[in-house]
């Protein structure tokens, strides 16, 4: 049996290593390892809770803002702060902008090269390329001349002998199935998307001052509205947001989605590969009636076990029996044994590297092999991310989601079960982007309506000053990062952070085995994945990239003591 090592996994955020055992051309066993650690929670201890958003936001610069959002919610939850409706809308708009940018960048810049053969595009007929492009979309950049110019540029690039980011790719691999013309469309839109993505993030710049890493604020949003002032959110700023949202919707509907639908039919075999875990978890997000009213979230909250779409189970972040983390295969130690699970409010950690001394060839996968801990929901390994969100929404009876999913599956002639796969994951990401583009405009209209009605409030100052806080408090902030369910747990004592913990999407998906030997999502999804050439692990990248890995925030460590606190806020 051959053991393949892919390290680094590229086109992701962070440092991920996959070791896989291959037998008869298929993966029979897989191990996922995070190989970098920074120590966030130790650093947060003793800080002002109002500063935590800035620290945790730096957990990830790709899905920037999501940790800031989870963090301000955790603090607001702990202190009982209700934010004004406009601040919720601004957060929602920033959320939507992040999703649109992140999902498009993932599709074109992190995932597309697994499906699109750049070198094959050199052989495309520009006239035929133009015909195909115009048959799938009304996007204006589609003339034969446009594709022919691009092809010349690409040819010169390849002939220069300096392939740059395309060097040593798996070009010509038998698993590439697209005709040269669709490859050329893919390359064209790779470059266009690179230009486009820097536009939509300006929504963050307007409300948060910069991107990546815009500013957030406990109690609301830092920007003020004053339609009669140049130095505030006024009609010019709002008009820019509206235009950005409209342009983004057009790009998504005219470029991203048509490309996704044009590529998918050539890879329908991948609707039967990479399914992995049968369990899905979503915390839900995008409040339309305040963060406390979970039933009114655009993305519903819930869990699905054993792919049973007839039942959505209730999820509670403050329930000590629900979310727990294990370390039996992670480079940490617990004071009361290697195999126990701990709820984040009482989590503990001590770094304990027991892996091989670098440079190493293989990890000792029988023992500890990752800096990621292993989270479980009621003891079950769960997949999180776009697929989990779409399935939970579908199973919860959300009409907009059901109609969209059914219509796309209909077009592809695929059953609902096709979603439980590598292709399904990639498709679900596209589907939710369509919804997000519409929702963003709804939130925008609502913000305008509020301002028109005279409500310009952005901040609730009632509990801003620490002397208004109780001696001890704890809270949870739940959110949906583009990559899946995200939660921060905070314990505040004497006005300072006593314990702070993050359980993030890639920790759910990329973690090592638990004490029962249950595999997490990546490891599980890789089993059964074909590998045509172990020197060119293209198929491994397809399945791993379908999750959109983001490792920097998945690895962190916890305060060693769990402190009893009397005040418990639920959400």
């Amino acid at each position, binding site marked *: 049996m051959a053991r393949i*090592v*892919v*390290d*680094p*996994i*590229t*086109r992701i955020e*962070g440092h991920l290593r996959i070791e896989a055992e291959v037998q008869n051309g298929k993966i029979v066993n897989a191990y996922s390892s995070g*190989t*970098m*650690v*920074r*120590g966030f929670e*130790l*650093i947060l201890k003793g800080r*002002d809770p109002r500063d935590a958003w800035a620290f945790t936001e*730096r*957990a*990830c*610069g*790709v899905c*920037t803002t999501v940790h800031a959002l989870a963090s301000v919610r955790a603090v607001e939850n702990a202190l009982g702060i209700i934010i004004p409706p406009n601040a919720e809308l601004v957060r929602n708009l920033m959320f939507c902008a992040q999703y649109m940018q992140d999902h498009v960048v993932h599709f074109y810049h992190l995932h597309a*090269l697994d499906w699109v053969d750049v070198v094959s595009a050199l052989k495309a007929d520009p006239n035929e390329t133009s015909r195909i492009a115009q048959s799938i979309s009304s996007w204006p950049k589609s003339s034969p001349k446009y594709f022919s110019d691009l092809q010349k540029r690409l040819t*010169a*690039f390849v002939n*220069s002998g*300096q392939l*740059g*980011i*395309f*060097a*040593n790719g*798996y070009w010509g691999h038998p698993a590439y199935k697209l005709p040269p013309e669709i490859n050329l469309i893919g390359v064209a839109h790779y*470059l266009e998307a*690179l*230009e486009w*993505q*820097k536009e939509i993030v300006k929504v*963050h710049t*307007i409300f*948060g*001052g*910069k*991107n*990546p*890493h815009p500013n957030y604020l406990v*109690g*609301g949003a830092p*920007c*003020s509205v004053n339609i009669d*002032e140049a*130095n505030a959110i006024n009609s010019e700023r709002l008009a820019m947001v509206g235009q950005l949202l409209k342009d983004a919707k057009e790009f998504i509907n005219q470029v991203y989605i048509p490309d996704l639908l044009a590529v998918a039919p050539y890879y329908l075999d991948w609707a039967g590969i990479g399914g992995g875990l049968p369990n899905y978890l979503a915390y839900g997000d995008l409040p339309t009636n305040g963060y406390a009213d979970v039933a009114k979230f655009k993305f519903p909250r819930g869990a699905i076990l054993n792919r049973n779409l007839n039942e959505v189970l209730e999820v509670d972040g403050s329930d000590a029996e629900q979310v727990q983390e294990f370390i039996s295969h992670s480079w940490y130690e617990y004071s009361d044994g290697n195999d126990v699970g701990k709820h984040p409010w009482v989590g503990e950690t001590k770094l304990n590297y027991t892996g091989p*001394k*670098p*440079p190493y060839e293989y990890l000792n996968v029988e023992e500890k092999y990752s800096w990621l801990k292993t989270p479980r929901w009621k003891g079950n390994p769960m997949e999180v991310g776009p697929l989990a969100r779409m399935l939970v929404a579908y199973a919860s009876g959300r009409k907009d989601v059901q109609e969209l999913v059914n219509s796309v599956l209909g077009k592809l002639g695929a059953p609902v079960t096709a979603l439980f796969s590598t292709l399904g994951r990639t498709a679900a990401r596209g589907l939710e982007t369509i919804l997000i583009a519409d929702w963003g405009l709804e939130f925008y209209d609502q913000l305008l309506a509020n301002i028109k009605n005279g409500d310009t409030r*952005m*901040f609730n100052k009632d509990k*801003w000053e620490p002397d208004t806080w109780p001696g001890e408090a704890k809270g949870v902030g739940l959110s949906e990062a583009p990559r899946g369910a995200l939660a921060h747990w905070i314990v505040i004592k004497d006005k300072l952070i006593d314990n702070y913990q993050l359980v993030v999407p890639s920790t759910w998906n990329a973690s090592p085995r638990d004490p029962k030997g249950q595999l997490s999502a990546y490891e599980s999804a890789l089993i059964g994945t074909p590998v045509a050439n172990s020197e060119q*692990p293209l198929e491994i990248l397809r399945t791993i990239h379908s999750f959109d890995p983001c490792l*920097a925030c998945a690895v962190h460590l916890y305060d060693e003591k769990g402190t009893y606190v009397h005040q418990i806020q639920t959400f």
Partner: protein
Amino acid sequence: MVQKPLTIYENMQMQGYSRRDFLKFASWLAAFIGVEASGLGSIVKAMETKSRLPVVWFHFQECTCCSESFIRSSHPIVSDIILDKISLDYTETLQAAAGHQAEAALHETMDKHKGEYLMLVEGSVPTEEDGIYCCIGGRTALDIVKQAAADAKAIVAWGSCASNGCIQAANPNPTGATPIHKIVSGTPIINVPGCPPIGEVMAGTIVHLLAFDRIPQLDGLGRPKAFYSRRVHDTCYRRPNYDAGLFVESFDDENAKRGYCLYKMGCRGPVTYNACGVTRWNNGVSFPIQSGHGCIGCSEANFWDNGPFYQHLASFPGFGIETTADDIGVVLGVATAAGIAAHAVSTNIRKKKLINDEIEKNRIAKIEKEEGGL
């Protein structure tokens, strides 16, 4: 057949840019990097004759915000230049190859272009426990950075992580996170701090290296003078409010709605050297202060440990200018005179040293207090 590498000008022609576009870009570039009109010819010549610079981009302890910021660089032609004029042979974020093939691409560049490649580093390097807190391809970041640095033409340390350690180096720095300049010696290093740095500043730094084949003028901390010689406070469009004693007293109050100075909300503009007030963010759309939140000082070393973000600077004893500013808020009558006096003091370099000393003293006191409490 492999042809001779294309020059920057040839590459631009391939993309359909006219000679006029090319010259426009060259003159923009000249202005961007502060060259006199008479020097324009040398830029044009350099770009007509140079092939693509081999570049390797490393990721260590980081969050990839620098890469993300880099691709936000706004002037359209610049992103083409960056993609097509340098040869980005290794980057975990964007490259097609993974695993062995990615490492092979890295080593091919390092061997073939020994002493000629540009090394870009995003992230700090953990040094505790022999560096096992960050491994790539089974090797420690520490090992990788030392090897790659030895034969690099120059190093650009992107962002605060690589320049000063940033968040993972914040107290108590659990993994021994260390900036590049404390690990590497003998190779020129350009520090481009910020969390992240502004995209156009990153592009501008590369473009400078590309066009002139030499590193830009650096300050005492190794930062390009073009972008880090002014305090955010000195280039802030809200500065007149500061000088007039007009301050935001609480987020979203009436003064916030008028865009008054955010100094009392903890703004670090007075102690932060960066181009935010001039270049602004995301093609000049805004910057933190313009959007209502104070600067958190993300381009300064140890900014995470320089006190809570919403505690304003006067809370640091000995920080004369801010004590003055506090008085301004109270006694409006003397605001203008005091503001001018404060201004004069604030631009004094000696004062900056005092401020930094004070911050360092506070930081040490904080660590000592915590250690004493264990």
